[in-house]
Protein backbone atom coordinates (compact mmCIF):
# COMPACT_ATOMS: atom_id res chain seq x y z
CA UNK A 1 0.00 0.00 0.00
CA UNK A 2 1.36 3.35 -1.07
CA UNK A 3 0.62 6.39 1.07
CA UNK A 4 1.60 10.03 1.39
CA UNK A 5 0.73 13.11 3.39
CA UNK A 6 -0.93 16.25 2.07
CA UNK A 7 0.40 19.64 3.13
CA UNK A 8 -2.28 19.86 5.85
CA UNK A 9 -1.07 16.55 7.32
CA UNK A 10 -3.89 14.39 5.97
CA UNK A 11 -2.61 10.89 5.24
CA UNK A 12 -3.75 9.53 1.89
CA UNK A 13 -3.37 5.98 0.62
CA UNK A 14 -4.56 4.14 -2.46
CA UNK A 15 -7.72 2.89 -0.78
CA UNK A 16 -8.86 6.33 0.37
CA UNK A 17 -7.62 8.36 -2.58
CA UNK A 18 -10.11 10.89 -3.94
CA UNK A 19 -9.95 13.29 -6.91
CA UNK A 20 -9.66 16.15 -4.38
CA UNK A 21 -6.55 14.53 -2.88
CA UNK A 22 -5.00 14.19 -6.32
CA UNK A 23 -5.77 17.81 -7.18
CA UNK A 24 -4.18 18.91 -3.89
CA UNK A 25 -1.05 16.92 -4.73
CA UNK A 26 -0.97 18.36 -8.26
CA UNK A 27 -1.37 21.87 -6.79
CA UNK A 28 1.73 21.14 -4.67
CA UNK A 29 3.50 19.95 -7.84
CA UNK A 30 3.91 16.43 -6.43
CA UNK A 31 3.42 15.02 -9.91
CA UNK A 32 5.48 11.89 -9.31
CA UNK A 33 3.32 10.98 -6.29
CA UNK A 34 0.11 11.40 -8.30
CA UNK A 35 1.68 9.44 -11.14
CA UNK A 36 2.43 6.60 -8.75
CA UNK A 37 -1.06 6.63 -7.25
CA UNK A 38 -2.65 6.54 -10.68
CA UNK A 39 -0.44 3.80 -12.07
CA UNK A 40 0.01 1.56 -9.02
CA UNK A 41 -3.39 1.50 -7.43
CA UNK A 42 -6.58 3.47 -7.32
CA UNK A 43 -9.47 1.29 -6.18
CA UNK A 44 -11.43 4.28 -4.99
CA UNK A 45 -11.35 6.08 -8.33
CA UNK A 46 -13.53 5.35 -11.35
CA UNK A 47 -11.89 4.99 -14.76
CA UNK A 48 -13.26 8.39 -15.83
CA UNK A 49 -11.96 10.09 -12.66
CA UNK A 50 -8.58 8.42 -12.99
CA UNK A 51 -8.17 9.34 -16.65
CA UNK A 52 -9.31 12.92 -16.07
CA UNK A 53 -6.73 13.25 -13.29
CA UNK A 54 -4.06 11.79 -15.56
CA UNK A 55 -4.83 14.51 -18.11
CA UNK A 56 -4.53 17.17 -15.41
CA UNK A 57 -1.35 15.75 -13.89
CA UNK A 58 0.44 15.46 -17.24
CA UNK A 59 -0.75 18.90 -18.39
CA UNK A 60 0.25 20.54 -15.11
CA UNK A 61 3.74 19.06 -15.48
CA UNK A 62 3.95 20.03 -19.20
CA UNK A 63 4.20 16.38 -20.32
CA UNK A 64 2.15 17.16 -23.38
CA UNK A 65 2.57 13.93 -25.32
CA UNK A 66 1.40 11.86 -22.36
CA UNK A 67 -1.34 14.38 -21.60
CA UNK A 68 -2.63 14.06 -25.17
CA UNK A 69 -2.63 10.26 -24.88
CA UNK A 70 -4.72 10.58 -21.72
CA UNK A 71 -7.05 12.98 -23.54
CA UNK A 72 -7.57 10.24 -26.13
CA UNK A 73 -8.32 7.69 -23.39
CA UNK A 74 -10.69 10.16 -21.73
CA UNK A 75 -12.58 10.80 -24.97
CA UNK A 76 -13.00 7.05 -25.36
CA UNK A 77 -14.67 6.89 -21.94
CA UNK A 78 -17.11 9.80 -22.22
CA UNK A 79 -19.82 10.94 -24.60
CA UNK A 80 -18.49 13.86 -26.67
CA UNK A 81 -21.93 15.47 -26.52
CA UNK A 82 -21.67 15.68 -22.73
CA UNK A 83 -18.48 17.75 -22.80
CA UNK A 84 -18.78 21.29 -21.42
CA UNK A 85 -17.39 24.37 -23.17
CA UNK A 86 -14.55 24.27 -20.65
CA UNK A 87 -13.81 20.61 -21.41
CA UNK A 88 -13.63 21.27 -25.14
CA UNK A 89 -11.27 24.24 -24.80
CA UNK A 90 -9.15 22.45 -22.18
CA UNK A 91 -8.86 19.09 -23.94
CA UNK A 92 -8.35 20.63 -27.38
CA UNK A 93 -5.52 22.85 -26.19
CA UNK A 94 -3.79 19.90 -24.51
CA UNK A 95 -4.24 17.74 -27.61
CA UNK A 96 -2.76 20.55 -29.70
CA UNK A 97 0.23 20.89 -27.36
CA UNK A 98 0.73 17.14 -27.66
CA UNK A 99 0.63 17.50 -31.48
CA UNK A 100 -2.45 15.23 -31.70
CA UNK A 101 -4.26 17.04 -34.47
CA UNK A 102 -6.67 14.12 -34.96
CA UNK A 103 -8.00 14.80 -31.45
CA UNK A 104 -7.99 18.57 -32.04
CA UNK A 105 -10.16 18.03 -35.11
CA UNK A 106 -12.39 15.59 -33.24
CA UNK A 107 -13.07 18.27 -30.64
CA UNK A 108 -13.31 21.12 -33.16
CA UNK A 109 -17.02 20.83 -33.76
CA UNK A 110 -18.06 20.35 -30.15
Amino acid sequence: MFSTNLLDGTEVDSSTLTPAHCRALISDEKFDVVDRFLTEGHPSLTSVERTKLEVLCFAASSRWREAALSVESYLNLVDLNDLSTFDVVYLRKIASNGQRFDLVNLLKDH
Partner: protein
Amino acid sequence: MMSFALKAWQSALIDETVSLSKAIQHLDESALQILIVCDASGAVKGTLTDGDIRRGLIQGHALNDPITGIFNSSPTLARAGWSNARMLAVMEERQLLQLPVVDDSNTIVDLVTLQGLLSRPKQSNKVVLMAGGLGTRLRPLTEHCPKPMLKIGKEPILELIIKSFIDSGYDQFFITTHYMPQVIQDYFGDGSDFGAKISYVHEAEPLGTAGALSLLPKDQFDEPFFLMNGDILTDIDPVSLMATHERLEAEVTVCLREHETQIPFGVVSVNDEYLSSIEEKPIHRVSVSAGIYLLDNALLGLLPEGEYLDMPDLIAQRSTEGKQKVGTYHINGTWIDIGRIDDFQKAQALISNLNN
Protein backbone atom coordinates in the same frame (compact mmCIF):
# COMPACT_ATOMS: atom_id res chain seq x y z
CA MET B 1 3.38 32.67 -13.97
CA MET B 2 1.83 33.13 -17.39
CA SER B 3 0.30 36.62 -17.57
CA PHE B 4 -1.67 38.77 -19.95
CA ALA B 5 -0.17 42.10 -20.82
CA LEU B 6 -1.18 44.75 -18.33
CA LYS B 7 -3.58 46.50 -20.68
CA ALA B 8 -5.40 43.27 -21.48
CA TRP B 9 -6.65 42.56 -17.98
CA GLN B 10 -7.02 46.23 -17.13
CA SER B 11 -9.58 46.45 -19.90
CA ALA B 12 -11.69 43.93 -17.99
CA LEU B 13 -12.03 46.07 -14.84
CA ILE B 14 -15.43 47.61 -14.11
CA ASP B 15 -17.17 49.51 -11.34
CA GLU B 16 -20.24 48.00 -9.68
CA THR B 17 -22.35 51.11 -10.30
CA VAL B 18 -22.35 50.79 -14.10
CA SER B 19 -25.52 49.72 -15.85
CA LEU B 20 -26.12 46.28 -17.25
CA SER B 21 -26.15 47.63 -20.81
CA LYS B 22 -22.80 49.38 -20.28
CA ALA B 23 -21.40 46.17 -18.81
CA ILE B 24 -22.56 44.15 -21.83
CA GLN B 25 -20.85 46.65 -24.14
CA HIS B 26 -17.70 46.54 -21.99
CA LEU B 27 -17.71 42.73 -21.97
CA ASP B 28 -18.06 42.70 -25.74
CA GLU B 29 -15.16 45.12 -26.19
CA SER B 30 -12.72 43.51 -23.76
CA ALA B 31 -12.93 40.11 -25.52
CA LEU B 32 -11.80 38.37 -22.32
CA GLN B 33 -15.27 36.89 -21.64
CA ILE B 34 -15.17 38.16 -18.07
CA LEU B 35 -15.33 41.51 -16.27
CA ILE B 36 -13.76 42.02 -12.88
CA VAL B 37 -15.80 44.22 -10.59
CA CYS B 38 -13.49 46.36 -8.44
CA ASP B 39 -13.84 49.24 -6.02
CA ALA B 40 -11.89 52.49 -6.38
CA SER B 41 -8.80 50.96 -4.70
CA GLY B 42 -8.74 48.01 -7.12
CA ALA B 43 -10.02 45.51 -4.56
CA VAL B 44 -12.02 42.75 -6.25
CA LYS B 45 -15.72 42.71 -5.38
CA GLY B 46 -16.74 40.07 -7.91
CA THR B 47 -16.84 38.99 -11.53
CA LEU B 48 -19.38 39.30 -14.30
CA THR B 49 -19.75 36.86 -17.19
CA ASP B 50 -22.30 36.23 -19.94
CA GLY B 51 -23.89 33.64 -17.65
CA ASP B 52 -24.38 36.16 -14.82
CA ILE B 53 -25.97 38.62 -17.28
CA ARG B 54 -28.29 35.94 -18.63
CA ARG B 55 -29.39 34.96 -15.14
CA GLY B 56 -29.89 38.66 -14.22
CA LEU B 57 -32.15 39.22 -17.22
CA ILE B 58 -34.14 36.07 -16.45
CA GLN B 59 -34.64 37.38 -12.88
CA GLY B 60 -36.20 40.53 -14.33
CA HIS B 61 -33.33 43.04 -14.15
CA ALA B 62 -33.56 45.83 -16.74
CA LEU B 63 -30.72 46.91 -19.00
CA ASN B 64 -30.40 50.25 -17.20
CA ASP B 65 -30.18 48.60 -13.75
CA PRO B 66 -26.75 48.67 -12.05
CA ILE B 67 -24.90 45.38 -12.08
CA THR B 68 -25.08 45.23 -8.27
CA GLY B 69 -26.99 42.09 -7.44
CA ILE B 70 -26.21 40.55 -10.83
CA PHE B 71 -22.46 39.99 -10.70
CA ASN B 72 -20.96 37.04 -8.85
CA SER B 73 -19.85 38.47 -5.52
CA SER B 74 -17.98 35.34 -4.40
CA PRO B 75 -15.86 34.33 -7.39
CA THR B 76 -12.99 31.90 -7.28
CA LEU B 77 -9.75 33.86 -7.01
CA ALA B 78 -6.10 32.84 -7.15
CA ARG B 79 -3.51 34.34 -4.86
CA ALA B 80 -0.38 35.98 -6.25
CA GLY B 81 2.44 33.44 -6.11
CA TRP B 82 0.31 30.39 -6.86
CA SER B 83 2.02 27.95 -9.20
CA ASN B 84 0.64 27.33 -12.68
CA ALA B 85 -0.15 23.76 -11.56
CA ARG B 86 -2.27 25.02 -8.68
CA MET B 87 -4.18 27.46 -10.88
CA LEU B 88 -4.74 24.78 -13.51
CA ALA B 89 -6.03 22.33 -10.89
CA VAL B 90 -8.50 24.93 -9.60
CA MET B 91 -9.64 25.91 -13.10
CA GLU B 92 -10.09 22.29 -14.12
CA GLU B 93 -12.03 21.39 -11.00
CA ARG B 94 -14.34 24.42 -11.18
CA GLN B 95 -14.51 24.59 -14.98
CA LEU B 96 -13.16 28.14 -15.14
CA LEU B 97 -11.85 29.65 -18.36
CA GLN B 98 -10.47 32.70 -16.50
CA LEU B 99 -9.06 33.17 -13.02
CA PRO B 100 -8.45 36.60 -11.46
CA VAL B 101 -5.29 36.78 -9.35
CA VAL B 102 -5.26 39.01 -6.27
CA ASP B 103 -2.63 40.06 -3.73
CA ASP B 104 -2.95 39.93 0.08
CA SER B 105 -5.15 43.03 0.10
CA ASN B 106 -7.50 41.45 -2.44
CA THR B 107 -6.34 43.84 -5.16
CA ILE B 108 -6.37 42.50 -8.70
CA VAL B 109 -2.85 41.88 -10.02
CA ASP B 110 -3.47 39.59 -12.99
CA LEU B 111 -6.06 37.69 -14.96
CA VAL B 112 -5.05 34.20 -15.99
CA THR B 113 -6.86 32.48 -18.84
CA LEU B 114 -6.98 28.76 -19.49
CA GLN B 115 -5.60 29.29 -22.99
CA GLY B 116 -2.70 31.33 -21.62
CA LEU B 117 -2.00 28.86 -18.84
CA LEU B 118 -1.83 25.95 -21.28
CA SER B 119 0.32 27.80 -23.80
CA ARG B 120 3.74 26.39 -24.23
CA PRO B 121 6.44 28.78 -23.07
CA LYS B 122 8.39 30.68 -25.72
CA GLN B 123 11.63 28.99 -26.72
CA SER B 124 14.61 30.99 -27.91
CA ASN B 125 16.25 28.26 -30.03
CA LYS B 126 16.23 29.04 -33.71
CA VAL B 127 14.88 26.86 -36.50
CA VAL B 128 16.65 26.61 -39.86
CA LEU B 129 14.45 25.32 -42.68
CA MET B 130 16.07 24.21 -45.93
CA ALA B 131 13.89 25.27 -48.82
CA GLY B 132 16.32 25.64 -51.69
CA GLY B 133 15.82 22.33 -53.51
CA LEU B 134 14.77 22.17 -57.16
CA GLY B 135 12.10 19.54 -56.51
CA THR B 136 13.06 17.72 -59.70
CA ARG B 137 11.24 14.50 -58.78
CA LEU B 138 8.00 16.43 -58.27
CA ARG B 139 7.90 18.00 -61.74
CA PRO B 140 5.70 19.29 -63.31
CA LEU B 141 4.27 20.46 -59.94
CA THR B 142 7.50 22.28 -59.15
CA GLU B 143 7.99 23.99 -62.50
CA HIS B 144 6.40 27.20 -61.20
CA CYS B 145 6.46 26.58 -57.46
CA PRO B 146 9.30 25.61 -55.11
CA LYS B 147 8.62 22.25 -53.47
CA PRO B 148 8.21 23.59 -49.90
CA MET B 149 5.43 25.89 -51.19
CA LEU B 150 3.33 23.06 -52.65
CA LYS B 151 0.04 22.98 -50.81
CA ILE B 152 -0.92 20.06 -48.62
CA GLY B 153 -4.61 20.67 -48.07
CA LYS B 154 -4.95 24.45 -47.95
CA GLU B 155 -1.46 25.36 -46.77
CA PRO B 156 2.07 25.09 -48.17
CA ILE B 157 4.24 22.37 -46.62
CA LEU B 158 6.55 25.06 -45.23
CA GLU B 159 3.66 26.80 -43.48
CA LEU B 160 2.61 23.54 -41.80
CA ILE B 161 6.18 23.10 -40.57
CA ILE B 162 6.46 26.68 -39.32
CA LYS B 163 3.10 26.56 -37.54
CA SER B 164 4.03 23.28 -35.89
CA PHE B 165 7.20 24.84 -34.44
CA ILE B 166 5.28 27.96 -33.37
CA ASP B 167 2.78 25.75 -31.54
CA SER B 168 5.71 24.34 -29.61
CA GLY B 169 7.01 27.79 -28.68
CA TYR B 170 9.73 28.19 -31.33
CA ASP B 171 9.13 31.33 -33.37
CA GLN B 172 12.50 32.37 -34.83
CA PHE B 173 13.20 30.96 -38.27
CA PHE B 174 15.87 31.11 -40.94
CA ILE B 175 14.85 29.78 -44.34
CA THR B 176 17.59 28.85 -46.80
CA THR B 177 16.50 29.45 -50.40
CA HIS B 178 17.85 28.84 -53.86
CA TYR B 179 15.09 27.88 -56.34
CA MET B 180 12.40 30.58 -56.78
CA PRO B 181 13.24 32.36 -53.50
CA GLN B 182 10.81 35.20 -54.17
CA VAL B 183 7.78 32.90 -54.00
CA ILE B 184 8.78 31.92 -50.47
CA GLN B 185 9.67 35.43 -49.32
CA ASP B 186 6.51 36.96 -50.78
CA TYR B 187 4.37 34.44 -48.91
CA PHE B 188 6.00 34.54 -45.47
CA GLY B 189 7.51 38.04 -45.45
CA ASP B 190 9.18 38.80 -42.13
CA GLY B 191 6.92 36.27 -40.41
CA SER B 192 4.87 38.81 -38.48
CA ASP B 193 1.62 37.58 -40.07
CA PHE B 194 2.38 34.19 -38.54
CA GLY B 195 3.46 35.47 -35.13
CA ALA B 196 7.08 34.65 -35.93
CA LYS B 197 10.36 36.23 -37.01
CA ILE B 198 11.55 34.87 -40.34
CA SER B 199 14.90 35.66 -41.99
CA TYR B 200 16.21 34.35 -45.29
CA VAL B 201 19.59 33.06 -46.41
CA HIS B 202 19.99 32.77 -50.17
CA GLU B 203 22.33 30.23 -51.75
CA ALA B 204 23.44 31.63 -55.11
CA GLU B 205 24.87 28.19 -55.85
CA PRO B 206 23.59 25.07 -54.05
CA LEU B 207 25.92 24.33 -51.12
CA GLY B 208 24.32 21.12 -49.88
CA THR B 209 22.28 20.64 -46.74
CA ALA B 210 25.18 21.43 -44.38
CA GLY B 211 27.08 23.85 -46.62
CA ALA B 212 24.20 26.33 -46.55
CA LEU B 213 24.69 26.60 -42.78
CA SER B 214 27.96 28.42 -43.37
CA LEU B 215 25.90 31.36 -44.70
CA LEU B 216 23.98 31.79 -41.42
CA PRO B 217 24.86 34.79 -39.24
CA LYS B 218 26.91 32.98 -36.57
CA ASP B 219 26.63 35.81 -34.07
CA GLN B 220 22.87 35.25 -33.87
CA PHE B 221 23.27 31.58 -32.94
CA ASP B 222 24.23 31.17 -29.31
CA GLU B 223 22.23 28.01 -28.53
CA PRO B 224 21.55 24.66 -30.17
CA PHE B 225 19.29 25.04 -33.21
CA PHE B 226 16.96 22.91 -35.29
CA LEU B 227 17.74 22.09 -38.90
CA MET B 228 14.99 20.57 -41.00
CA ASN B 229 14.28 19.89 -44.65
CA GLY B 230 11.42 22.06 -45.84
CA ASP B 231 9.55 19.20 -47.45
CA ILE B 232 8.70 16.99 -44.47
CA LEU B 233 5.28 16.47 -42.97
CA THR B 234 5.67 15.28 -39.40
CA ASP B 235 4.14 15.58 -35.95
CA ILE B 236 7.50 15.47 -34.19
CA ASP B 237 7.59 17.20 -30.79
CA PRO B 238 10.50 19.70 -30.94
CA VAL B 239 10.47 20.16 -27.17
CA SER B 240 10.97 16.44 -26.66
CA LEU B 241 13.72 16.41 -29.30
CA MET B 242 15.48 19.28 -27.53
CA ALA B 243 15.21 17.46 -24.19
CA THR B 244 16.78 14.35 -25.74
CA HIS B 245 19.58 16.39 -27.29
CA GLU B 246 20.36 17.95 -23.91
CA ARG B 247 20.15 14.63 -22.05
CA LEU B 248 22.56 12.98 -24.51
CA GLU B 249 24.87 16.01 -24.34
CA ALA B 250 25.17 15.56 -28.08
CA GLU B 251 26.84 17.85 -30.57
CA VAL B 252 24.39 16.73 -33.24
CA THR B 253 21.15 14.80 -32.75
CA VAL B 254 19.80 13.07 -35.83
CA CYS B 255 16.11 12.19 -36.04
CA LEU B 256 15.51 8.68 -37.26
CA ARG B 257 12.60 6.95 -38.86
CA GLU B 258 12.09 3.23 -39.24
CA HIS B 259 11.96 2.19 -42.87
CA GLU B 260 10.76 -1.18 -44.14
CA THR B 261 11.89 -2.81 -47.34
CA GLN B 262 10.47 -6.09 -48.54
CA ILE B 263 12.69 -8.25 -50.70
CA PRO B 264 10.39 -9.66 -53.39
CA PHE B 265 12.13 -13.04 -53.52
CA GLY B 266 12.95 -15.98 -51.31
CA VAL B 267 16.20 -15.08 -49.57
CA VAL B 268 18.53 -18.00 -48.86
CA SER B 269 21.52 -18.49 -46.63
CA VAL B 270 24.24 -20.75 -47.91
CA ASN B 271 26.80 -22.56 -45.82
CA ASP B 272 29.65 -24.28 -47.63
CA GLU B 273 27.60 -24.83 -50.81
CA TYR B 274 24.62 -26.21 -48.83
CA LEU B 275 21.48 -24.21 -48.32
CA SER B 276 21.00 -23.62 -44.59
CA SER B 277 17.78 -21.53 -44.60
CA ILE B 278 15.28 -19.87 -46.90
CA GLU B 279 12.97 -16.99 -46.05
CA GLU B 280 10.24 -15.97 -48.47
CA LYS B 281 9.91 -12.22 -49.15
CA PRO B 282 11.48 -11.08 -45.87
CA ILE B 283 10.92 -7.54 -44.58
CA HIS B 284 14.05 -5.65 -43.57
CA ARG B 285 13.65 -2.83 -41.06
CA VAL B 286 16.29 -0.17 -40.84
CA SER B 287 16.55 3.30 -39.28
CA VAL B 288 16.93 6.11 -41.78
CA SER B 289 17.80 9.75 -41.27
CA ALA B 290 14.56 11.73 -41.22
CA GLY B 291 15.99 15.05 -42.44
CA ILE B 292 15.55 16.71 -39.04
CA TYR B 293 18.52 17.57 -36.81
CA LEU B 294 19.49 19.45 -33.71
CA LEU B 295 22.93 20.99 -33.88
CA ASP B 296 25.18 22.68 -31.39
CA ASN B 297 25.75 26.28 -32.45
CA ALA B 298 29.53 25.77 -32.10
CA LEU B 299 29.40 23.63 -35.25
CA LEU B 300 28.73 26.75 -37.32
CA GLY B 301 32.25 27.93 -36.60
CA LEU B 302 33.71 24.69 -37.97
CA LEU B 303 32.03 24.81 -41.38
CA PRO B 304 34.15 25.97 -44.30
CA GLU B 305 32.44 29.01 -45.82
CA GLY B 306 30.86 28.63 -49.22
CA GLU B 307 31.92 24.99 -49.70
CA TYR B 308 29.57 22.21 -50.69
CA LEU B 309 28.74 19.83 -47.82
CA ASP B 310 25.78 17.55 -47.18
CA MET B 311 24.52 16.68 -43.70
CA PRO B 312 25.39 12.94 -43.96
CA ASP B 313 29.00 13.94 -44.67
CA LEU B 314 29.06 16.34 -41.73
CA ILE B 315 27.52 13.70 -39.44
CA ALA B 316 30.00 11.07 -40.59
CA GLN B 317 32.79 13.56 -39.99
CA ARG B 318 31.63 14.43 -36.47
CA SER B 319 30.77 10.86 -35.43
CA THR B 320 34.29 9.67 -36.20
CA GLU B 321 35.82 12.39 -34.01
CA GLY B 322 36.45 10.51 -30.75
CA LYS B 323 35.17 13.09 -28.30
CA GLN B 324 32.16 14.29 -30.27
CA LYS B 325 28.78 12.73 -29.84
CA VAL B 326 26.08 12.28 -32.45
CA GLY B 327 22.79 11.41 -30.75
CA THR B 328 19.66 9.91 -32.22
CA TYR B 329 15.95 10.52 -31.73
CA HIS B 330 13.32 8.15 -33.09
CA ILE B 331 10.18 9.56 -34.68
CA ASN B 332 7.26 7.24 -33.97
CA GLY B 333 4.37 9.35 -35.23
CA THR B 334 3.68 10.90 -38.62
CA TRP B 335 6.63 11.41 -40.98
CA ILE B 336 6.35 11.81 -44.73
CA ASP B 337 9.27 12.99 -46.86
CA ILE B 338 7.48 14.65 -49.77
CA GLY B 339 10.05 13.84 -52.43
CA ARG B 340 7.95 12.10 -55.04
CA ILE B 341 4.42 12.34 -56.42
CA ASP B 342 3.17 9.34 -54.40
CA ASP B 343 4.55 10.88 -51.17
CA PHE B 344 2.81 14.14 -52.08
CA GLN B 345 -0.47 12.28 -52.59
CA LYS B 346 0.00 10.38 -49.32
CA ALA B 347 0.46 13.69 -47.47
CA GLN B 348 -2.67 15.11 -49.15
CA ALA B 349 -4.69 12.10 -48.02
CA LEU B 350 -3.41 12.40 -44.46
CA ILE B 351 -4.30 16.09 -44.16
CA SER B 352 -7.66 15.51 -45.83
CA ASN B 353 -8.49 12.79 -43.29
CA LEU B 354 -7.51 15.06 -40.41
CA ASN B 355 -9.72 17.86 -41.69
CA ASN B 356 -12.81 15.71 -42.32
